[in-house]
């Protein structure tokens, strides 16, 4: 991870506060291209804030963030949509729209201006990858929590992003479903996508061999292999 050409995400002395409450303090780390890493720590440790800084939902108070060589601090507002299109996000609260599963996943491609005729096969292939091909015409409200989570993953990966950020993707899921979600992440990672998973579920990390960043009180406390 030393060569900057191979670095996908880098934080250098990044701090972020909400009012007088510091969420991140002087955080520095880097993540190589094609890696699958975990961001762990208790609730309120700053995991979600760190992800939000990467996908530009928040701006840092101090420090420098780079994504695939692009310094995010200086990005103009008008460029933000194009940067976000390179990032797939699995939101903690899903953020699924009241449309069919197909339309939710296709949205990522429609935003990119892709033709409808090209969208259909790509969306169906992606739904197949997350085992939801048969639910394409269902509404998210008719799906289980695990299925909804897989729709969110499908929506995040359908545009073949360089980076996939997942915020508590297995929260509130039973262990079998959580293991299934992790299998999907490994498959996507095997295709070359860099993945950063924020989770407080330490069971999920055991013996994975992946790199872990442990946050506590907004500070990066540990960097270790699981």
């Amino acid at each position, binding site marked *: 991870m030393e060569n900057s050409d191979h670095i996908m995400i880098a934080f250098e002395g990044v701090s972020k506060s909400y009012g007088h409450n510091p969420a991140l303090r002087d955080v520095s780390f880097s993540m190589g291209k094609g890696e699958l890493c975990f961001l762990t720590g208790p609730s309120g440790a700053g995991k979600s804030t760190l992800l939000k800084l990467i996908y530009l939902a928040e701006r840092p108070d101090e420090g420098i963030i780079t994504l695939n060589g692009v310094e995010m601090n200086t990005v103009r507002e008008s460029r933000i*949509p194009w940067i976000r*299109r390179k990032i797939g996000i699995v939101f903690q609260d899903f*953020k699924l729209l009241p449309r069919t599963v197909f339309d939710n996943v296709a*949205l990522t491609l*429609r935003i990119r201006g892709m033709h409808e005729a090209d969208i259909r096969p790509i969306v169906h292939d992606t739904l197949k990858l997350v085992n939801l091909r048969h639910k394409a015409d269902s509404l998210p409200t008719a799906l289980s929590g695990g299925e909804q989570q897989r729709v969110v993953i499908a929506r995040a990966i359908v545009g073949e992003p360089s980076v996939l950020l997942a915020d508590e993707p297995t929260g509130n899921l039973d262990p079998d479903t959580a293991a299934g979600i992790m299998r999907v992440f490994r498959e996507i990672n095997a295709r070359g996508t860099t993945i950063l998973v924020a989770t407080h579920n330490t069971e999920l990390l055991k013996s994975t061999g992946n790199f872990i960043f442990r946050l506590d009180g907004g500070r990066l406390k540990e960097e270790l292999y699981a």
Partner: protein
Amino acid sequence: MMGYHVSVALSGIWREKWINILCALSIAVGLFLLAIASLGVYNIEMATSRLPEKFSMTVYLKDGLSADEVQGITEEINKSPEVKSVQYTSKDDALKELKTIMRNSDYILEGLDDNPLPASMTVALKEASVTDISVKKLAENIEDLKGVSEVEYGRRLLEVIESVRKNTQLIGGFLIGALAAAVIFICYSTVKILFYRKMNEVETLKLLGSTRWFIRAPFLIEGGLIGLAGGLLSAAAVVGVVYAGYRRFEASLPMIGSLSLPPEVLYWLPATGLCLGIIGSFIAIGRIRF
């Protein structure tokens, strides 16, 4: 891509159908009042512009003028740009005319030794130049001519017409402006409510990499379609009310037959609704920040 935006807008309209129906009805009422106000202004304008076509002034001449002097006055009056034509009536012709008018009671004229009627000129004016100021100025100029004893014209009538015209334009303009603003405000507030209700959806779209126009487009289409629906409803209402009014009051109020409904209203109202809907929506969405 437009097909996608239209389908999102249509499903949005369907999902929030009651608020959208109420909005379309409010716009229809606003546009209906706007149309009635415009038709009022239009008809008053038409009626007041028709009256001066028959408008003329009569110039009474002093007795004993020679033919050359009469010719000179005629030429002088004709020089004025407001004048369409000048028709001379001699003393004898005036008497003949009076006798024709009073042929059943010509005993009144018996015993007249001299012809008491003056020679006169009937001055017809160009329609476009008939205003109370221009006619008053022209009358003063003619009165100053040598050989002219008096100028008569419908001064009071002209003043009333001008006053009605000006006030109608002023009040009508204000009313039309206020109603147009009301329609924009209705669209604005409706789309603002819809936008707030879809705030989470908009946030998600932003995070997925949508541009501002991708987010705005369905709202603008939605606002435009609601405005268009309001416009179509108001056009139907105007046509219905005007024709029902003709039928109901034609016998008792003959002047109603002279009211006119320009056919342009049928596409002018929906087009106005569409434009005001889009404008209201655009203002309601405002600047989208990422």
